[in-house]
């Protein structure tokens, strides 16, 4: 408690005394300060780090990169750090799906940065980054929500149109409901050479897809008391969507072992008609060097479930400042720098979605002369309105790990959807009880 008070008062003191309280003064001056950081590695994420030397030059501080790894390995490392009490480094990678697990690791950024800077971010994202009232991270331009990619030529083919109309009684057009996706996927499928659609089949990936489908069917994953209630009617309808497509062989038989890379490569190989996928793939799909469907890709907002709600499971990357950091103002300045307008423009130019309102506008303007990019951004901008994050419980990943084998069991036909969900809900309840949450 005293430590908390101390942290708060330091924060307040920082607010009153330091220049960093006014956005005009960012990034500020921190000569002689060294900031230890832990960053996510990988092509897509590293371009941004070229901006670090500029921050060093502007502030006189030095950045020392302790770690650069992929997300799951950083997650492991952060947990090991918390466990061994070695958390005196300053700036760390964070992700909305992982963030609630790191209880007590990261400090409240809203106390370290001026309000107008925080208001410049998309409000729903800031809300999702706020855990128990603390703004634990500032999002970078790596916002993820899925939209529907499809092969345009399939929908322009006259033969397809007449046959589809004859069979299903309505016009063939890019789908707006998940029911239509089911019809069309079965219509287009011609295994083993061509599939109607596909879905991520394991780990948090399938649980996330299931979660958004539950929401679109009008159900809840956890109720307002935090109790798992995804084994409701809506939950069963949601799971049946996956089960029926698998039974109808409208999805690749290996789909329960697929993760994101398999899905993206699959759509790029031209063997899948409709694909719900992330914005990061937009460029890849339309590049003749990497994709067989280049020039033939349409993008549309994600379809609606039976409740009229669209799916919109979302997540984003960000940076956080640790509670034990010796120089929080300098650390917060670095976090601000990596997520400010120029940084977001740099990242967004390569394809990922921004999290600042102004950068969205800029991005759309940049795309004006590129019809494909315009279509992509339009779809994702629309989709971002329907986006929702995962339930903010530290046990989310653990629940995912308990639930996904049950989902797979239902898809593969080992259990009925109801059996599988009842067992999954029992396991999830057990986890939450063990953690003292229920």
């Amino acid at each position, binding site marked *: 408690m005293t430590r908390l008070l101390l942290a708060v008062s330091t924060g307040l003191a920082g607010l009153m005394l330091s220049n960093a309280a006014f956005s005009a003064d960012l990034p500020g001056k921190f000569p002689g300060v060294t900031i230890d950081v832990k960053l996510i590695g990988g092509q897509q994420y590293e371009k941004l780090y070229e901006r670090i030397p500029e921050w060093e030059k502007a502030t006189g501080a030095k950045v020392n990169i302790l770690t650069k790894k992929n997300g799951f390995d950083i997650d492991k490392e952060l947990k090991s750090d918390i466990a061994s009490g070695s958390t005196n480094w300053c700036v760390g990678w964070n992700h909305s799906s992982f963030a609630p*697990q790191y209880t007590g690791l990261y400090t409240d950024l809203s106390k370290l940065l001026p309000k107008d800077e925080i208001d410049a971010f998309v409000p729903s994202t800031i809300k999702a980054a706020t855990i128990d009232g603390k703004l634990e991270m500032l999002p970078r331009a790596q916002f993820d929500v899925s939209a529907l990619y499809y092969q345009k030529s399939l929908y322009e083919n006259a033969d397809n149109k007449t046959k589809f109309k004859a069979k299903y009684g309505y016009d063939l057009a890019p789908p707006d409901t998940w029911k239509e996706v089911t019809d069309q996927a079965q219509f287009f499928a011609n295994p083993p050479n061509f599939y109607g659609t596909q879905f991520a089949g394991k780990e948090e990936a399938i649980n996330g897809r299931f979660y958004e489908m539950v929401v679109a069917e009008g159900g809840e994953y956890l109720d307002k008391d935090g109790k798992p209630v995804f084994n409701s009617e809506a939950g069963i309808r949601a799971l049946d969507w996956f089960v029926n497509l698998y039974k109808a062989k409208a999805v690749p038989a290996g789909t329960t072992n697929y993760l994101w890379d398999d899905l993206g490569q699959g759509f790029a190989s031209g063997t899948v008609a409709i694909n719900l996928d992330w914005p990061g793939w937009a460029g890849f799909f339309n590049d003749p060097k990497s994709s067989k469907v280049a020039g033939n890709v349409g993008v549309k907002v994600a379809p609606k479930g039976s409740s009229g709600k669209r799916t919109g499971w979302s997540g984003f990357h960000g940076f956080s400042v640790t509670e034990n950091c010796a120089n929080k103002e300098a650390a917060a300045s670095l976090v601000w720098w990596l997520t400010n307008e120029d940084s977001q423009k740099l990242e967004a130019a390569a394809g990922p979605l921004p999290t600042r309102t102004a950068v969205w506008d800029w991005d759309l303007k940049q795309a004006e002369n590129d019809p494909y990019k315009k279509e992509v951004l339009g779809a994702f901008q629309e989709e971002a309105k329907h986006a929702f994050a995962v339930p903010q419980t530290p046990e989310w990943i653990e629940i995912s*790990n308990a639930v996904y084998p049950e989902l797979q069991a239902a898809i593969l036909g080992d259990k009925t959807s109801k059996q599988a969900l009842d067992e999954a809900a029992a396991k999830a309840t057990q986890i939450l009880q063990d953690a003292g949450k229920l």
Partner: protein
Amino acid sequence: MKGFKPSAPFLLLLPAIIVLAAVVVLPLILSLYSSFTPFRLTRPETFFVFVGFRNYLSILSNADFWWAFGRTVLLLTIALNLEMLLGLGLAMLVEKATRGQRVLRTLMMFPMMFSPILVGFQFKFMFNDNIGLVNNALQSLGITQDAIPWLIEGHLAFIAISIAEIWSSTSIFAILILAGLLAMPKEPIEAARVDGCTPWQTFRYVTWPFVMPFAYIAMTIRSLDVARAYDIVKIMTDGGPAGRTELLWTLVGRTAYSDARMGLANAMAYFSILLSIAFTVYFYNKLAAARAQIGAEW
């Protein structure tokens, strides 16, 4: 001189003992302790809560765990035996070759150059049902029209991970058995031939007894080291789908880091260590027997 002698082996072994105590035994004591706590990585304070055998009891009644346990034993048994047979065959093929020995031996060890994690990525890709090499080849050759879901179907998935494991580890058997074959004196074989033994008899009664200790060394080393299959399975299926290829190590890995329940995971790990010890002691005894048989000093 007499007074010095008993301490010589101790001195010679001292460096090994120090290193192993520091890097293996000490951490093991730590993890043994933590298996009696509800230790969660994200809540360091739980490290100091003592719950006795609760983790072990919850494992005993956990059906998923015992399935994984049984599956691990099955994988070990199948993989080790096939690896030994294939390794023996390979070593003999290479030993008989008259030309290009050096190249052949290097090639024989080729899979050992592959990091297990790389083997995992590579076989996962080859066994992909839609765009994988194996299905593409089968379909192009007209053997099947279907996309065989190698990594999905219960038995196929198990076979796929066994193939990856066997591919990556047969070399170890082959090279050790080859070393044995090369170290083998030539006279007994000549003598056997002069006595009119058939090639099979020569192999069975002269070559095999001599090579057997090397095979058992390889077997024991592999059973010690078999947990490195973790990297392969982790990448290929991570125990899925629906737990069909769950092994002890994938279960421990997920419980430890992803679920952050280190206390429980360490308790599971101790079961897996017991399993390794059982395998090791078994082969070790076989090794001692084999040595006694060829009259080596023990």
